């Protein structure tokens, strides 16, 4: 299966990485082929495992207020702040349309 322009477009937007030259596309193609080897294993009737922790117990915390009230410390990380609010760029700037 060839990698289509739509898929490349989509990947570049997500990763914010430009790999449009043919070397990049070929490398991507090879990487997909390599990963496709996974399909050779028969997994019929086997439940997928997300994590080796799946048999661990999920700890439940009591509903008490134990944290917070550290505005000053958190604000030390802010490059810019306005009256204890973090400052961020306006909304989501849409990416310019990519040409072929």
């Amino acid at each position: 299966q060839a990698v289509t322009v739509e898929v490349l477009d989509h990947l570049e937007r997500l990763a914010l990485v430009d790999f449009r030259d043919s070397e990049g596309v070929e490398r991507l193609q090879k990487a997909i082929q390599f990963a496709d080897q996974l399909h050779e294993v028969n997994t019929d009737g086997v439940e997928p495992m997300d994590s080796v922790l799946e048999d661990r117990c999920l700890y439940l915390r009591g509903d008490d207020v134990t944290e917070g009230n550290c505005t000053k410390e958190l604000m030390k990380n802010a490059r810019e702040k306005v009256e204890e609010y973090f400052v961020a760029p306006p909304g989501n700037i849409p990416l310019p349309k990519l040409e072929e």
Partner: protein
Amino acid sequence: AKACGGVWRRAWQRGVGGPVSGARQAFASNARGGAGSAARCGLVPWVPVVGLEVHAQISSNSKLFSGSQVHFAAPPNSLVSFFDASLPGTLPVLNRRCVEAAVMTGLALNCRVNKKSLFDRKHYFYADLPAGYQITQQRVPIAVNGSLSYSVCVDNKMSQMVTKTVKIKQIQLEQDSGKSLHDDTRSQTLVDLNRAGVGLMEVVMEPDMCCGEEAAAAVRELQLILQTLGSSQAVMAEGQLRVDANVSVHYPGEPYGVRTEVKNINSLRFLAKAIDYEIQRQIKELENGGTILNETRTFDSKLGCTIPMRDKEGKQDYRFMPEPNLPPLILYDAKSLPANMNHQQVVNIDSIRERLPDLPSVKRAKLVEQYGILPEHSFTLLNEDGLTEFFENVVNQTQMKPKKVIGWILNDLLSYLKQHSLTVKESPVSSFLLADLLSLLEKNQISSTAAKKV
């Protein structure tokens, strides 16, 4: 579809015209797809389809995965822990109270509670989501396949109420995001993370509704249920209950049309308005030969219309993945209760079920049975905060029969309160005084006109 039939029949009749009785019959039989005998009549009965996603803030002291406080108005970024700010090295720790709230809600909505549910990450970029992902339950949520029954009035007459049911697809636990304040003049966004990480129950309703009125009625009933359970205070004005509507229209017999998502609706009244506007907009667009875009729109309450949201262009790829820091959430019941586990770590579905309070529908039935009032009266009593209690107090302290008392409460007292925008708690006439007054009336010591003046 019966309640909606009237509304949409009137809507297209204005443009098309045609025999009234024929239209009603045609619409009723074609409401959910099927052969278009309406088409043969030359009429166009568009079928609107409405589904809702309701986010209810869980009523708890601390957040879903951290110990910072849940509180409405507080200085910006004062109720934020290192985890909420997504500082490296922090991990989520699940709040037991949030799990119980979700189980209660699932049981009240007749859901199957999943004894094993999983957490996932939903990725997207936005300033109020510091981690770049939201922890939610996309694959296996905590409760599925429930139902919610609600009532709508037929033709705006309270005396003819029809019971409808909407299916609940699922209920999932997820994190709330922070709040963004857009400052367009200085081209920046101010972010307050106090709300980031607060526990939410997302209730997904199947697209079983067909107009704004049904949607508003369903949400109102859900609101009453949540408030009765105490799992959420569900006050829309304070953002504790947020509703997104998915709206589409299609021609009977054809597949569902393209749907749009309408967000930013902050009251029940606007919910009904926004949905009805969007249905009309889609019908007009399609009848003019246009197409509907699968987009997200916001409701402008001042203009009374929906407009496209600039930030949500194109379909988002959320790259769902299992949350690696949280093992599966296991719930127990009486049969599967583990013998030697610390009971702080055990959530027992059966014991939660036993402790469920009377749901609104049960309370209404009891009121009707106990006091002999009409069903629609019981609806009004439960709809106004504190009115049921007031009514019962009056009945207990007066000689007048409940069936007569209800008339005074609903017609005289309530209309007065509404006229002066007062809540029941702010009523200038206490239940004791009213009881006294009505007793005097019963004994014919005063006339009813005099009583009304008071």
